[in-house]
């Protein structure tokens, strides 16, 4: 489809990568040209080399797996609790009216603010870390599931009812598919939250995990290691989001556009 007078349209690959390449180029050049101290910002290639080395040796891999394990445990727990609860509260919206103010209050209470309390109650081990991720991740899942179920187009429900559909089928064949896109938005928020908060949880009293690597290498002024951990976290976040986008496209393929952000 060529429009007359249209400017040259660069390939999609170029459009998507040019800003990142420019950023990485600056990261590489600034310390090399001596504009920024190398001891504070090692060139990108050095960080990559360090990252590759520590992945090969298994040093970083161990920490990655520990962090991912904690995130996944907290996220799965949140899914297990918040999804059924959200369906119930969304379906019986008469009850939801009474609970909603409390949910809003809890949601607005930062998980970070509660972390000292979690440590106090659950100790400094795995439980408190998984618990804090569970706490933070369940809100977007719960609230999106409630609103997804509550806001199903009443005409669709009416239309299905006119065909004599039973309660169970109404839920399975109408409410669930109609709510799925909203639920997925919640899942994506919860997943990115699980990755974000694990760092904070691991900087407070941990002996392993990417958050621990981050603070530990900062104390020891091992900056390539610190940057390697940062890059890893960024890649994990990006990867998780793309995984969920892929899943969402498969499950709700009837929706026109699902964008990665």
């Amino acid at each position, binding site marked *: 489809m060529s429009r007359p007078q249209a400017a040259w349209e660069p390939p999609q690959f170029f459009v998507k990568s040019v800003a990142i390449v420019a950023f990485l180029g600056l990261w590489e050049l600034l310390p090399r040209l001596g504009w920024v101290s190398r001891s504070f910002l090692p060139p990108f290639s050095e960080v990559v080399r360090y990252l590759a080395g520590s992945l090969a040796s298994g040093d970083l891999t161990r920490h990655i797996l520990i962090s991912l394990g904690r995130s996944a445990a907290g996220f799965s727990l949140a899914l297990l609790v918040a999804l059924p609860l959200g369906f119930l509260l969304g379906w019986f919206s008469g009850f939801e009216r009474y609970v909603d103010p409390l949910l809003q209050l809890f949601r607005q209470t930062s998980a970070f603010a509660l972390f000292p309390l979690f440590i106090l109650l659950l100790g400094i081990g795995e439980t408190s870390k998984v618990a804090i991720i569970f706490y933070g991740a369940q809100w977007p899942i719960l609230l999106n599931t409630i609103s997804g179920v509550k806001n199903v*187009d009443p*005409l*669709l429900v*009416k*239309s*299905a*009812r*006119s*065909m*004599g*559909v039973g309660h169970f*089928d109404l839920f399975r*064949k*109408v409410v669930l*598919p*109609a709510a*799925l896109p909203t639920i997925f938005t919640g899942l994506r928020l919860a997943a990115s939250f699980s990755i974000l908060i694990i760092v904070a949880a691991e900087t407070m009293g941990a002996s392993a995990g990417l958050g621990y690597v981050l603070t530990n290498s900062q104390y020891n002024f091992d900056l390539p290691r610190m940057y390697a951990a940062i890059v890893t976290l960024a890649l994990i976040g990006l990867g998780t989001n793309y995984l969920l986008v892929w899943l969402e496209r498969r499950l*709700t393929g*009837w*929706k*026109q556009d699902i964008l990665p952000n």
Partner: protein
Amino acid sequence: MLSFLSPSLATALLPALRRSGPADSRAKAAATAPVAGPAVKIAAQGIQRRFPVKGGPALLALEAVDLEIRRGEFLALVGPSGCGKSSFMDIVAGLTSASAGSVLIDGKPVTGPGLDRGVVFQGYALFPWRTVLGNIEFGLEVQQKPKAERQATAQRYVELVGLRGFEDRYPHQLSGGMRQRVAIARALAYDPEILLMDEPFGALDAQTRERLQLELLRIKHSTHKTFLFVTHSIDEAIVLADRVAVMTSRPGTIKTVLDVSFPAQRREDPLFRNDPAFIALRERVWQALHDEVDKAQDEERAS
């Protein structure tokens, strides 16, 4: 003209069309002669509907609606906006219950929705996550028909409404007219005896609307179903219906019922709307409706 019926399908679905002689006798047969059993298919008796209003007296939407729809008849319901046409249809569909009175279908009171009635809504109400075929299969799934049979039946109705080649499209990929065809096919697919249509063509442009009216005429003649068709278009009511019931402004009740006895062939004629008989009848319906529309508007201004 529209050849949305494939030849093989036409023979399967329209034996009456093939066999019978002039169109006149066909129309009369559909309009008057019951296929079997008692002549009355739907009987609404003293239907009243109140809606509770916060901090005020209840709103009386329908007051003592008495209406009989004969078996195999096409009855159009017209009335000023807000007169409770849609409420009445919801009550017949079993989607809401009347505050007083009852609806009898074949002599049995309606207690809830059922597959003996197919409903087509103005807003199409298609499931956006289902394809054309999937949407049409919905009622058959409720009937728990086996998959192969469901697909075969749905395919037949896809062809009946002229959507062959669009089976795997999703509703958002279709035009408004095509979506309404899917909605009609979905309601026809599980073979209900009654079709309830609530301003089904209200959202369509004039050309699409006329085309779908003609297709509905053909479906009417090929299926012998009983139709209750809510519309605010007098022309549409006359083109399609055997009888036109005019409702009063709120609280709605039946003001008058007019017979429309045009043969099918004349209805399908593109110049039918210029026919003196058509114009005369439109004038009569318009007169009946006119006072009610004025009343409804006065009431709106007053409140």
